[in-house]
């Protein structure tokens, strides 16, 4: 047996990969399958699952409701569709803003002297490694009605002799957007930097020799070659933003309910895991569709690992 193992390369490979493959199979593949099964069931009175095969939960997510104000058998209730749409648009705008903020910074680092490059990169890592929850807390302190931003604005207003009413910033959609941008900015900076750093200097010289001005060089050389970084960053930002519930929970309060909050709620307080499972599968399908079309157009770069 041992002799055979020593000679058979296929066996060796299988054995080496087995622990990881089994682990991922039991903790990622099977749970996804279970979620699918549960999503077709319905809720039992004690919050358990009655297995079955009904699309009821999915219909509910699309707006089908049996709990109508007029007493009809069914009607259209856009609540959950709105939540899905809100999550999608928030993730879209977060990604756009993060690209706009990350690109200049990544460009600056990639074009800085190699000796200083590491220091600038490390400066991006410190906020990234500071715990996710702590970073949300920082924004709670800044945005509160008596928080730092209102404090500074009030001080300036007093100096100028103006009257000042503290702004309501916490528990608004804007607060959630700012929080999301802050949380995920480093995930865009690192992959864009990686792809920019790979561009070789002679390419710029060639562009300049051929008469391109810096702006044209950027459009025709730098931007296309850095696209793999932008794609990788988008995947690393868009997908988690779609599923995060802490930022909206702490900075949005009850004003900004996202699909993540909906799912969390179904599993904890509302106790309807079947509806929560359906919502989570819809969330997964939405992110997979977006990722698929996005990567098919621009490719799936190795920059993801670099981050």
């Amino acid at each position, binding site marked *: 047996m041992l002799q055979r193992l020593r000679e058979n390369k296929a066996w060796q490979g299988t054995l080496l990969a087995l622990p990881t493959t089994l682990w991922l199979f039991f903790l990622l593949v099977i749970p996804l399958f*279970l*979620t699918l099964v549960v999503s077709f069931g319905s809720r039992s009175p004690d919050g358990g699952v009655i297995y079955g095969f009904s699309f009821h939960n999915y219909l509910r997510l699309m707006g089908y409701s049996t709990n109508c104000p007029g007493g009809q058998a069914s009607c259209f209730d856009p609540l959950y569709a709105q939540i899905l749409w809100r999550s999608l648009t928030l993730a879209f705008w977060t990604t756009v803003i993060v690209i706009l903020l990350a690109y200049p910074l990544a460009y600056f680092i990639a074009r800085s002297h190699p000796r200083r490059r590491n220091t600038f990169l490390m400066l991006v890592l*410190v*906020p990234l490694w500071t715990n996710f929850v702590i970073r949300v807390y920082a924004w*709670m302190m800044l945005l509160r009605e008596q928080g730092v931003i209102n404090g500074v604005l009030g001080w300036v207003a007093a100096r100028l002799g103006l009257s000042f009413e503290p702004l309501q910033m916490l528990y608004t959609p804007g607060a959630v957007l700012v929080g999301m941008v802050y949380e995920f900015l480093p995930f865009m900076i690192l992959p864009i930097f990686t792809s920019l750093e790979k561009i070789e200097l002679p390419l710029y010289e060639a562009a300049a020799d051929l008469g391109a001005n810096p702006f044209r060089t950027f459009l025709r050389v730098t931007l296309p070659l850095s696209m793999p970084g932008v794609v990788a960053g988008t995947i690393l930002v868009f997908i988690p933003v779609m599923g995060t519930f802490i930022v909206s929970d702490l900075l949005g309060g009850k004003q900004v309910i996202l699909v993540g909050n909906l799912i969390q709620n179904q599993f904890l307080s509302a106790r309807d895991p079947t509806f929560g499972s359906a919502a989570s599968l819809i969330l997964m399908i939405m992110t997979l569709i977006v*990722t698929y079309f996005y990567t098919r157009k621009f490719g799936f770069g190795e920059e993801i690992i670099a981050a």
Partner: protein
Amino acid sequence: MNPYRRHPFIRVATVLVYIFLYAPIVVLVLYSFNASRTNVLFEGFISSFGPLKTSGSLVTQSPCGPFHWFCELSQNREVGVAARNTLTIAFISTFVSTVIGTMAALALQRYDFRMKPFSQISLYIPIVIPEIVMGIGILTLFSQLFGLLNNAFGLTGDARLSLGLGTVIVSHIAFSVPFVTLVVQARLQGFDKSFEEAAMDLGANELTTFWRVTFPMILPGVLSGALLAFTLSLDDFVITFFTTGPGATTLPIYVYGLLRRIITPQVNALSTIWIAIVLTAVILLQRLQNREA
């Protein structure tokens, strides 16, 4: 043409983005020295040492002086337990995922076998699927499985299987392994197979070749994979949130619980310690990299 030339617009934008990244952190640290107990406004430092004295919501004197909230924090037993849990989970999950992840990377890069395509594809699951989807999936798995087992073996009371440190560790390994494997794979791609062939020609067997040739060459990849796994585990909130049980609270879960109820400067003190550790780690890392270069 100077390759390091950057447009003034880029410079200004860079400064602004760095300010955006660091302003919240500076505020967080500053407020951990706040004399105000309610922590709404910054009311100055606690400047005098001595027995605790307060006036209204202000702390005017403390045995620890300006470090009052850090001393309070060190007395907080819940934080101590949460910190110990966080580290236990991070160390065990990092160790296991580094070992099995490196093995998988070797298999995927150096061997051909039937389930290879499946193994490779499953690595991308945690990257393309939102964490919350994984979290509730794993929660469903554990609750169904434990329900079945508890019934089948008639387990009751303390013997019942339930969510806790074990389930958190197992789940953390699941989302860390793919990152370790991908990082080590990238390292393996970059290096020449002929070194290993030379060692074998010189009479080394496969194990010797691995420990004397392959392993030292992939070590940087293994170490950065382990570091990644460690930080992912320390930082994780969502998966932990759904797989943890009584007595297995981690620091992020503890802080989240506090923030929903009350905000005290103790949370800032905790954040400051966390930031200080990260800063030290990052500086050490840079020293290490500079020495290598």
